[in-house]
């Protein structure tokens, strides 16, 4: 199965470990993620003001690239898969907003005269949706190294689950990450704040506020005796992992806890090499606990 893949900006820089582990573990499942030959920033946040059509152009342009891929024979599906929660939300919502309002669609077309006209028929999916559709039993069959005794806390963040209309799961009681991690053989513990905001873009100008919000999540994970927190969003990862120094300044007794992407644990459980798991790019380092559990 070949699926057009939109990685988004941050997966090519700060979250490179998210990108490489995704592509490699997809391959182990027989899914070839074909990166769009040309793509641009999705805009990161959906334009919520009803008259703000201009900010639909960036996400829609990426969907035009998907249609071009199909015309060029690079894929046989009008579908694009994303991994970043913010890209997913932005592409999905711009697509929906353009499709439900012909006037907006016309405006978008008129503002991109040099581009082919967008048909409106590209489907935006999240990688987790593809995994879920493939079935957890099927996925478990690919596992070579079950993550036995690894105690993990899944963290969903906001945009995979909200707004309700664009959720990949039940926003009140999500379970897709739990099901996945259990299929990988891990011991999964739920925390009440599994979908509470990490502080998101306040990390730029309200660092302490972000650190406080992220600390609440990690404190629950620590209380649950987690070896690590598992995330699916590069901005969540930054706030939860890279703001731990700030957290320690505010809460001196705070002990650091590794934060990894779910795709990295997939790559590990599938028996892939360190190129694919890319744990060396995580900070705090998850290696000591993985070694302790006999997984590396």
């Amino acid at each position, binding site marked *: 199965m070949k699926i057009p893949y939109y990685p988004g900006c941050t997966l090519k820089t700060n979250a490179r470990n998210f990108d490489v582990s995704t592509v490699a573990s997809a391959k182990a499942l027989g899914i070839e993620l074909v990166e769009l030959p040309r793509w641009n920033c999705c805009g*990161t946040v959906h334009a919520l003001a009803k008259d703000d059509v201009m900010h639909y152009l960036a996400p829609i342009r990426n969907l035009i690239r998907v249609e071009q891929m199909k015309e060029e024979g690079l894929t046989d599906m009008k579908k694009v898969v994303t991994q*970043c929660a913010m890209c997913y939300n932005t592409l999905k919502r711009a697509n929906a907003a353009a499709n439900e309002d012909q006037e907006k669609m016309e405006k978008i077309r008129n503002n991109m005269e040099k581009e082919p006209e967008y048909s409106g028929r590209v489907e935006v999916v999240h990688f987790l949706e593809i995994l879920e559709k493939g079935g957890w039993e099927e996925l478990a069959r690919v596992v070579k190294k079950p993550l036995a005794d690894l105690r993990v806390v899944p963290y969903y963040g906001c945009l995979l689950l909200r*707004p309700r209309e664009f959720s990949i799961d039940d926003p*009140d009681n999500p379970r897709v990450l739990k099901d996945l991690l259990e299929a990988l053989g891990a011991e999964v513990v739920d925390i009440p704040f599994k979908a*509470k905001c990490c502080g*998101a*873009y*306040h990390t730029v*100008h309200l660092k302490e*506020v972000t650190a406080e919000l992220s600390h609440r999540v990690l404190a629950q994970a620590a209380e649950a005796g987690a070896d690590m927190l598992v995330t699916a969003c590069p901005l969540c990862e930054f706030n939860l992992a890279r703001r731990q120094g700030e957290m320690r300044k505010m809460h001196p007794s705070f002990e650091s806890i590794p934060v990894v992407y779910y795709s990295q644990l997939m790559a590990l459980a599938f028996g892939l090499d360190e190129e694919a798991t890319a744990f060396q790019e995580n900070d705090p380092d998850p290696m000591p606990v993985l070694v302790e559990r006999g997984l590396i």
Partner: protein
Amino acid sequence: MSKLYYTYGPENASFKAKVEELSGENIDLCFQCGACSSGCPLTEEMDLLPSTVIRHAQLGVEEALESKTPWVCITCFDCEIRCPRGIDIANVMEALRQMVLRTKYDRFTLDQLTPEELRELPQIAIISNQRKLSA
């Protein structure tokens, strides 16, 4: 915002209509149950609770534009999944932000960061921050 009560008169209609137009939300649906405020992770940083901002908007009180709350709102949509009346409160917050940003106002600009701070941040944080907080 220091006033104890507000009354709705013809002079309040245009502000209310603008908020409804930009947000696409029917704010009169709100019956002040407070579910949005109880779920909001950022109320400690706000001067008005999200439900109070909605009340201001219902009454067409323009002082809502001077509140910190729309800037503190992080658009996490926790309120959206809780509202029993189906209002997307995040859209109302966006409408209020946009009304201020469109006067060429910047809530935050990147030149307030040191080069080191800027370098460590992922693009996703910088772009979303500026999309929400700068004209």
